[in-house]
């Protein structure tokens, strides 16, 4: 008996310890993928600063991993209960949030595609009109990676190249890989992509893939990975094989780990997205849209190639947004 | 009148001869003690009766009809039941669930959804069964794991009774029981006898065997070494027949001391 009471008391007490959140008029709901990635952390900071400057209230949620598709949908539905005026969402895939977004639209809530994870064709079919999408142009980011590579080793360079994609089926990783491949073909036809494999955004998996391909193609000249985590995994394998000077490794994101590695001269380059800027501009643009100003349907936030030279020179004005 | 008749039962496992021609007769309502040292062949003999093993040679008859060709399920259906030492109870289920396990009566739920187990009837009949055995359980709706060893034994016997057996073989039913519970299990055996059910009791506890049986059969090296009327024998003789000569006096003294 005593034990039962104790258990209830504990349950009640632990709940009471959570501060009561109040909804203000005109709250923005922000739904991220997961916080276990510095990219989303930086975006969160951008959202926070943007909201502070614009003087708006927001509440933010994320799920446990960037593969928790259904949990994210459930969280999204729950967030609607708080009746936000706008939902800024970074969907885990192109379809998982559709029912929630439709419901939001029906309730007159403005829907924003954060980081461009939604597929315009699917949105059309579902009859969902988003207010705008904002994020880096991932195809362009991939292309920038290719441009950097060609500028480093020359347009007439020859040899095998490895591409490490993101999670199978993830549109972001796909766009980056495609942007890189298309641009490379155009600029340096002598560089042949011998393998394009999904690294599942996983550092360890990318390292393994790199090892395997180095065994098959010992003369590998470059690796393009669809994010920095995987690029850093690839770097470790390349150095372990003693080919640090031979293989150029390029990542995407420009996260703090990558910046550190570039400064140390290990990772060659990272096409930095500016998640801080994406988050900040997302909130600013929502504010504009709500105030009745016009906002373009596609807000492209530029990307920036980080190399040791760029970082050391420190003259690039956009560097201040690299978090 | 003979219920069960065994003659010349032989059984070997590969090169090891376990039974060398065992003869045994059990009358209806008779309680037989089957004793013998470890490895004497007691459990092999019992599994030959229940049909888990098939005899290499010899005859087994129940009510004068050979049952050699029957499998364990069929032998159970014609009235041969065995209660193993582990009781084979589902310990988290209640009394009725155990007694009727595998043969639950069904009815229609709300009068039209078929296949619903008639739990009320199970409980009622289980309670009757326990009462018929003259036993008492604290509650019929509790998991059997909450019962004492003797009470669990009661449930196992009650379950055996629902098959309407002619012969119940019990493997060491008193081995793990507290002293006061032994008596209630012996009472249950007497109750079975009074209903005309024959019992073969396998036990190392000779005091229990002497207390409850009509006859004691001693197995030794795969043969029925002795067939003693309980009323005409005593601990010393039984022990002597089990160990077969040698220092029987000290073995008997040990038995006497050991189980008091």
């Amino acid at each position, binding site marked *: 008996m005593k*034990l*039962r009471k104790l*258990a*209830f008391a*504990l*349950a009640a007490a*632990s*709940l*009471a310890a*959570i501060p*009561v*959140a109040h*909804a203000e008029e005109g709250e923005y709901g922000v739904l991220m993928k*997961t916080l276990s990635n510095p990219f989303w952390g930086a975006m969160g900071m951008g959202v926070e600063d943007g909201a502070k400057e614009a003087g708006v209230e927001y*509440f*933010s*949620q*994320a799920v*446990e991993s960037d*593969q*928790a*598709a*259904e949990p994210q949908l*459930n*969280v999204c*539905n*729950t967030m609607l*209960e*708080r009746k936000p005026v706008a939902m800024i969402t970074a969907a885990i*895939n*192109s*379809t998982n949030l*559709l*029912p929630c977004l439709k419901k939001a639209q029906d309730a007159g809530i403005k829907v924003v595609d954060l980081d461009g994870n939604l597929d315009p064709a*699917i949105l059309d*079919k579902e009859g969902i009109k988003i207010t705008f999408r904002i994020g880096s142009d991932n195809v362009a980011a991939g292309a920038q990676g290719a441009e950097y590579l060609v500028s480093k080793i020359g347009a007439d360079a020859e040899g095998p190249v490895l591409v490490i994609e993101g999670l*199978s*089926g993830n549109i972001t990783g796909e766009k980056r890989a495609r942007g890189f491949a298309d641009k490379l073909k155009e600029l340096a036809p002598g560089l042949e992509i011998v393998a394009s494999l999904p690294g599942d955004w996983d550092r360890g998996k990318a390292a393994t893939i790199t090892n395997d391909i180095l065994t098959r193609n010992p003369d590998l000249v470059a690796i393009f990975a669809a994010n920095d985590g995987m690029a850093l995994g690839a770097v470790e394998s390349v150095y372990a094989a003693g080919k640090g000077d031979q293989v150029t490794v390029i990542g995407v994101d420009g996260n703090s780990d990558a910046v550190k590695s570039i400064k140390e001269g290990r990772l060659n380059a990272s096409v930095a997205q500016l998640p801080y800027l994406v988050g900040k501009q997302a909130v600013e643009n929502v504010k504009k849209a709500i105030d009745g100003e016009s906002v373009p349907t596609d807000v492209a936030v530029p990307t920036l190639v980080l190399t040791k030279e760029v970082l050391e020179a420190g003259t690039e004005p956009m560097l201040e947004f690299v978090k | 009148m003979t219920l069960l008749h065994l003659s010349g039962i032989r059984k070997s496992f590969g090169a090891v001869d376990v039974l060398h021609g065992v003869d045994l007769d059990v009358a209806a309502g008779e309680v037989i003690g089957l004793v013998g040292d470890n490895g004497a062949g007691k459990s092999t003999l019992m599994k030959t009766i229940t049909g888990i093993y098939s005899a290499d040679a010899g005859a087994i008859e129940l009510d004068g009809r050979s049952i050699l060709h029957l499998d364990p399920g069929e032998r159970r259906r014609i009235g041969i039941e065995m209660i193993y030492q*582990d009781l*084979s*109870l*589902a*310990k*988290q*289920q209640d009394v009725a*669930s155990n007694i009727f*396990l*595998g*043969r*639950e009566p*069904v009815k229609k*739920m709300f009068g039209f959804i078929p*296949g*619903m187990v008639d*739990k009320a009837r199970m409980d009622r009949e289980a309670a009757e069964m326990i009462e018929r055995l003259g036993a008492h359980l*604290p509650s019929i*709706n509790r*998991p059997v*794991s*909450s019962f004492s060893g003797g009470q669990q034994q009661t449930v196992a016997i009650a379950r055996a009774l629902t098959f309407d057996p002619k012969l119940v073989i019990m493997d060491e039913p008193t081995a793990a029981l507290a002293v006061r519970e032994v008596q209630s299990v012996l009472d249950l055996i007497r109750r079975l006898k009074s209903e005309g059910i024959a019992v073969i009791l396998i036990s190392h506890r000779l005091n229990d065997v002497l207390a409850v049986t009509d006859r004691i059969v001693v197995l030794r090296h795969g043969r029925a070494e002795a067939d003693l009327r309980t009323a005409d024998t005593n601990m010393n003789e039984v022990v002597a027949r089990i160990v077969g000569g040698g220092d029987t006096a000290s073995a008997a003294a040990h038995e006497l001391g050991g189980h008091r």
Partner: protein
Amino acid sequence: MATTATPGIWSRAQRASIDRLHIRLESFIVLLVLAAAMAVLSPFFLSVSNFLNILLATSTIGVLAIAATFVISSGGLDLSLGSVMGLSGVVGAYIAVNLGAPSPFGVGACILAGAIAGYINGQIVTRAFVPAFIVTLGMLGIARGLALVISGGRVIYGLPEYLLFLGQGRPFGIPVPVIIFVITALVAHFVLAYTRFGRHTLALGDSEGAARAAGIRVERQRRILYTISGGLAGLAGMIFMARINSGDPTAGLNYELTAITAAIIGGTNLFGGRGSILGTMIGALIMGVLQNGLNLLAVQSYYQQMAIGAVLILAVFIDQYQVRKETRA
């Protein structure tokens, strides 16, 4: 010996709830207390639409938890639930979208794909004597891989309208997944608690020897249970597929553990012999209410995982305490 203590109201209510409904009263009270606490803490909690949200969010995991309850209470384990759910959704979407088959075939394909995976689990467990943990762990990988192969790693989008109704329809304002979930739970509860099949399942989990001695065809029973488990995972896959209008090869990732957690919080014995679907539903709802409430309070998902972990341990602790008290009595 047996002193007949006069039972208090609590223990009589407890007894009755176990006898009639096969649930433990404590878990139900924990659910109510939790819901009351959430209602006090968040002004958004107490509303019909939020209540339906909770049920909707619980529907797929709830169906998987029903599957987990069947298998675990029989002394088995099915780790492939989440993967099979993902595979079923992809198979259903492939058949309905890529092959253009009529909707009933899509539904049938989901459930059949799940049932086949479960049947294979059951065959290997009972015939090859490989432990269930290993077999279903293997199936976890096989089913997930197959889902990625069939879908080419992409979501298969654009289901026919009838299929969509199963995920997005709202007759009388109630989402169809919730209706499917509740009906499945009621039928499953009836089967596990009141039929011979259900009683044999529990007895089997309790003591395989006792079940065998009672003439229950143990291997057959296990095969049926794994097939049901797979079929239910297929149903969950169908629900989720219809909800998001696509077959997602990564659907149901790690759901097997969540489903098992719901079953255990609901009072299922991890080693078999005890379990009830209503109990599991309460377990699933405890998790659903906790997550929903914490979401409404905008508490980070990290803390939610901690809270659910703590509830799991607390639930089993209370349960063990009650069981030991009973056994001592």
